[in-house]
């Protein structure tokens, strides 16, 4: 068994497509219309085009809002991404206007930071030393 795809709820798929590709730097993999306005929209890392896909899933279900609002208030991220250098990525994203709820902190073996994806979620980035 392996993780082929994982998903994250987004308020607005067009906005999410912009943020996850233009700002974060992922690459769009699949974009298929589903139903009236929804899309099967996935992105992958440019470093691993055949790697795990991230599905940007519409957040319309009534359970999603209270679930995410509570997690966001406590600063709990819904996804974690690996980066080469958290501090460099922090500076790059902050220059693009991304809001961080946790600045880079060395936590034992890893350095982490947490930002708002503007689509309703907090995302953690982490660097592990080689």
């Amino acid at each position, binding site marked *: 068994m392996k993780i082929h795809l994982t998903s994250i709820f987004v308020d607005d798929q067009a906005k999410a497509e912009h943020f996850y590709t233009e700002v974060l730097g992922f690459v769009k993999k699949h974009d298929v219309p589903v139903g009236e306005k929804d899309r099967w929209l996935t992105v992958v890392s440019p470093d691993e085009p055949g790697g795990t896909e991230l599905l940007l899933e519409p957040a319309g279900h009534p359970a999603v809002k209270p679930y995410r609002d509570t997690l966001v208030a*406590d600063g709990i991220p819904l996804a974690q991404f690996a980066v080469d250098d958290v501090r460099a990525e922090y500076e790059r994203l902050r220059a693009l206007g991304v809001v961080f*709820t946790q*600045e880079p902190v*060395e936590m034992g073996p890893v350095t982490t930071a947490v930002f*708002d994806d503007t689509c309703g979620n907090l995302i953690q980035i982490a660097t592990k030393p080689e």
Partner: protein
Amino acid sequence: MADDLFKALADPTRRTILDELAEQSGQTLFEICGRLSMKHQLGISRQGVSQHLAVLEAAGLVETRREGRYKFHDLNTAPLRHIAERWPVPDTSGPEESTS
């Protein structure tokens, strides 16, 4: 005052939380939990950390604020002044070398 303050300070985990907030004020619950587990190897559940924070907040040592959709915790050391007022600290620059 006193009782809440001393009860809050009596626990080593809560003192560690205060240390971490002294290093960086304005942390989310997630960041505090991360620091306790990753930096201090304290395996406490989020609920446990929440309860510790509630005790610190009741003693006035931690204050929370909402900023947009996020909730941050700040350190407030002002209540500690009560201790120095009750048992005043001598105001000398070099306590070891008092030349009389």
